[in-house]
Structure formats: C-alpha cells, structure tokens
C-alpha cells in the first residue's frame, strides 16, 4: 500500500499554473527526488506537502490520512530548508531540541535524543555552538539533525545541498544516503542538480513547467528517457533529426543517409533520434560521415564536436590510449541500435 499519495495536485497563481495535475505515490522508506529546472513546480509541490502553500485542487494523503486537513505545525513532517533556516539565537543543541520541546518531551529524554541526533550527523562536539560560528556544511547537518530528531513520518529536503561547495556536497550526499539507510525515513528531495538526484534517489520525478515528464529509477530514466526534455535534462545528449518510414516488414529511421531499425509503432514522418555522447564511437565501416570541428581534453576523457549532415554531434571518448581523430579530420561515427532512442516529432 502506498505511503504518500499526491492525487491530481494543482497550484495556480492567478493565470499561471505552477503545478498542473500532479499525481505521485511514494512507498514507505523510499527516497524520491523531484528534479527539474527552476520554475518547474518542484518547490511549490514541496511547500504544498509541508502546508506553507494551499493547493488550488487535489489531495495529499500520508499513511491513509488526509494531510491537507492539518495545519503545518500539526503535520509532523521534518523539513530541511535550502537556507537551513536555523534559529540564529539558539545553539545547535537548542535548535535540535526545539521540536522535542514543542512535543512536551521531558528534559532528560530530550537531552539524550539531542545528543544522539547530533552524534548521528557527526556533530557530537558542537552542541554549544551558535549557527553563525559554524561552516555551511555543519549548519546543514544541524538542520538535518533538527528535522530528524522528531522522528518525522516524512522528511522533506528543499535543495539541501545547493549552498555547499562541490567537495562538501559530495560528502553530504554520501552522509545523507547513509543516514537514510540506517534510519529508514521516507524522504522527498527537491533538487535541480541531476547528479545529486541520481546519486541519492530510489526514484526520480522529472518535472517541467508544472507537469511530470517521467517517474523512474535514476538509471532507467537516464537510459530510457520518456521525452526529449528528460533526455536533455539528465546529462548531455545528442538530438538528431531524421525521417521514419516503412522498411519491408519493420520500420526504420533515416539519419544523414544511414538507416537504423526502430520500433514498429512509430508513425511515418519526422523522427527525433537521441544518443548519449559516450555511446557514440568512431567506426571504420558504415556510419554517419562527419568532420571533427573541435576536440577538447578533459582529464579522464576527450570531448569531440562532430559536424554531420543531420546536425552537430557531441562525442565523449575515454582517455585510455586509443588513437583518436585529430581536428579537421573526416570521420565516420556510429552507435549500437540499442543505445539510441527514437521519438516521433521534430526538435
């Protein structure tokens, strides 16, 4: 039985629809990311679950109970804010204790729980510090401890790592994953960073303009994007314009003079072929002819810009000693049929 259910949730601000008919189910103990560019409605969705915004239409239930009927301070959710929103006039320990105090937990139990929570996030020795005297990463851990200590039925994380530098962010990703595994709290993570979503989530919800584009496990969404938007948003991809037509018993797509077999249900007409840069290879025999416009060394890999008749292609090759074409060299490129996706329509 699903734990959290968003049922046709909609939020309108005047004529503008921020979240459009969004439905989603989350299982207990799952970590689901809402992923999308800014303005896609992910934060609005989170705020409606938290109760800081009232939905224009739709329902939210948690463990079978109607969540919208309750005030924000009665929902019992843990929230980690993008700005952390720590109380600056309270020490780390007082911050963590606040939620317990609101629940009327006796002093002795409270102290023990606060200590355990700070220990869990690796801040055992920092209880007496004020937030101003802590680094961004430490503040972020306090915010996490404060939200976790009340044993929330659901933990909402709003861009929790976006204010950290790259190295810190990686560390916190691992930390978050560890805590989630050990405590088993159901979490909803809002982020615009696809790498973060991929690294942390059991499933990702890719949103665009208030609508859900795809809900899938990270690797699945990456390998089988449901739309051009998803393909583009989840990492770099190549989009090539071609034409789909009947080919004997099956169907095929013609791209720059090369034909690729495609699924039978695609209609005739323009088709869009997507293939990841790391899946494209330089081939000797038949392939798409092109010219190397530029090549850039990126440490572990080489990046190529190839001009073809069907458009420009990005190609990524590992830096592992193989011989690679030089700039302005004519080449043939190709890929395996199972590495490409074809959608009807034009770019």
């Amino acid at each position, binding site marked *: 039985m699903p734990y959290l259910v968003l049922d046709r949730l909609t939020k309108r601000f005047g004529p503008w629809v921020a979240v459009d008919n969004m439905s989603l189910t989350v299982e207990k103990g799952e970590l689901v990311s809402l992923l999308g560019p800014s303005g896609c409605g992910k934060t609005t969705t989170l705020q409606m679950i938290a109760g800081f915004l009232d939905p224009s239409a739709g329902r939210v239930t948690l463990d079978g109970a109607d969540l919208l009927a309750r005030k924000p301070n009665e929902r019992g*959710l843990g929230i980690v*804010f993008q700005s952390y*929103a*720590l109380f600056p*006039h309270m020490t780390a320990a007082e911050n963590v204790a606040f939620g317990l105090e609101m629940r009327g937990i006796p002093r002795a139990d409270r102290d023990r729980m606060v200590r355990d929570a700070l220990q869990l996030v690796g801040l055992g020795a920092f209880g007496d510090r004020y937030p101003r005297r802590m680094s961004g990463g430490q503040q972020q851990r306090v915010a996490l401890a404060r939200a976790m200590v009340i044993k929330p039925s659901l933990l909402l994380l709003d861009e929790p790592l976006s204010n950290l530098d790259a190295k810190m962010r990686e560390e916190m990703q691992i930390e978050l994953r560890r805590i989630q595994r050990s405590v088993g709290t159901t979490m909803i993570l809002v982020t615009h960073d696809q790498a973060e979503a991929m690294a942390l989530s059991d499933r990702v919800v890719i949103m665009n303009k208030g609508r859900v584009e795809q809900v899938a496990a990270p690797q699945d969404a990456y390998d089988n994007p449901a739309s051009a938007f998803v393909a583009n948003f989840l990492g770099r991809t190549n989009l090539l314009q071609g034409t789909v037509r009947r080919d004997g018993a099956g169907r095929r797509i013609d791209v720059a003079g090369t034909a690729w077999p495609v699924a039978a249900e695609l209609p005739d007409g323009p088709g869009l072929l997507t293939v990841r840069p790391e899946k494209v290879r330089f081939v000797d025999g038949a392939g798409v002819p092109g010219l190397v416009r530029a090549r850039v060394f990126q440490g572990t890999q080489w990046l190529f810009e190839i001009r073809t008749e069907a458009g420009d292609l990005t190609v990524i090759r590992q830096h592992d000693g193989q011989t690679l074409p030089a700039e302005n060299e004519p080449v043939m490129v190709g890929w395996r049929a199972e590495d490409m996706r074809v959608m009807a329509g034009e770019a």
Partner: protein
Amino acid sequence: MTAVDAHKSMMESSDAASKSAPPDRPERRPLAPYLLSLPALALFAVLLLVPLVMTGLLSLNSFGFYTGIEDVWQLGNYIDIVTDDYFHEIFLRTFRIAVVVTLLCAVLGAPEAYILRRMRSPWRGLCLLVVLGPLLISVVSRTLGWALLFGSTGIINTALMAVGLIATPIEFMYTETGVIIALTHVLVPFMVLSVWASLQRLDPQVENAALSLGAKPFTVLRRVVLPQVVPGILSGSIIVFALAASAFATPAIIGGRRLKVAATLAYDEFLNTLNWPLGAAIAILLLLANIVIIVGCNRLVERRYKQVFE
C-alpha cells in the same frame, strides 16, 4: 541572506589578502584619501569642534543680571543645576517623558513593523511609505496637527463629547500627556525603521521551520521572531530616547511655556533670560547624556548579541 554572507566572505578574503601582502611594499597613493577628505575635515574642525568647545568654555563662565557674561572660570552653573529643585523637576520630567515615549514607540512600532513585513506587495511598499514618510515632513507641521486635534474645542474632544464618552474636555494642551502623544507620533517611525531593518535580516523560512517542528503561531512569535528582533527594538529605543530627551519644537508647541523640558529650558535661558552660561551648561549636560546613552547602549547591545548576530 546567502548573498550577503557571500559578499561578506568576499570582503573578508580580500582583507586577508591585503594583510598577507609583504609589509615593506610601499602604498601606491597613501595621501589620496586624506586629500579627498581634507575639505570636509577642515569644515568640520572649524564648524563643529570649535563651536562645541566654545560652548563648553562658555558654560564655565558666570552671568550677572547687570554685568552680563563674566570671563571667570568656575563650575557654578553646573552646581546650580545639580542642587536646584527647579532644575531637578524639569530634568526629571524630561526623563519621564522620554521613557514613556520610548516604551510607547516600542509597543506600537515593533508590532507594526512585523505586520508590515507580513503584508504583500504592493500594499507593503505603500504602507511602509505612509509610515516612514512623515519622517521627512517638518516637525512643526506635524506638531501643529496635534495642536489642532488637542484644543478644548479641537477634534478629539469634540468627537469624544459627541459620542458621550466624556462630559468635559480633556486637557491635552500644556500637559505631559499631550507632549507624550505628539512626541510618540513624531518619533515612532524611527522605531518601525529600526525593527524593520532587523526583520529584513530574518530568514523568512525560519518561521516555517518552527511551524514544521510543531510550534503554534504564538510560540513562533515569542520563541523565534521576538528574540531575533530584540536588537532592533533596543537600537530603535536608543534613537527614540535620545531624540525624545532632547526634543524641542514639539514640547515647545504642545507644552508651551508652562511645561518646560530640558531643551525648552535651555532655549529660555538663551533667548529670554539671556543667561548664556547657564544655557550652555544645560546644553553640555544634554550632549553628554546623549553621547553616554547612544555610545554606551550601543556597546552594550553589540556585546550582548555579538555571539548570535555578527
């Protein structure tokens, strides 16, 4: 908030960079800042420091009704002020008025600033202008308004008697009550301004965070918002108190000649009694009290909240 922090850390890092520079590297244009600020410095030295020192010296002179100002050096004026009951009463009244006005401004101004912050645009900007705009309007005009409202046939009394709340007019003119109401009106924008500034530094998500942890709206206000706004209320109180204690035009118009405060007393000594040395002594005491309150209280507030706020 994050942008501010980033800006601050940038400032710090550039500071650190300039500190770690080799000490023997000559400054490129060490004279430029002095040359640039020299005109204003000279102006202030001549026009601010000299007159204040001269006033200090004047306060040590003595005054005779027939002889005028006498060039002797003594502390007679200060001793007079400290020992005479007449002066005690006036200084006590000034202090009492300033305290009550400060409290009223805090009680009215702080909630108003909070309410303003919770409003939505465009209402917020508009109301903020209405609240702060009077700061730019002449004190005389604003006080005149109160004089018109206060008179025994003024609008407040006429209205109160018309609805039958009172039988005889309330005396506002020439009373402390009247001076306090008018001064509160003149000075409350400063309190709103000060609390507003401290509310601006408050992360709007902090209130949501407290709500999400199960706090009731009133608890959020008491435990989360108020403690962060206290520095703003305190610094607003310092400003209001200092201005109320040295206010002149409002007590002069509403209080008249009968109800004297320190500033109107100094005015009378100068322009009516012509006892300049005594007036100068009152002015010097006012100045010292002002400096002690502003500098002293600011230090105190800063030290108390240094740990929490930068």
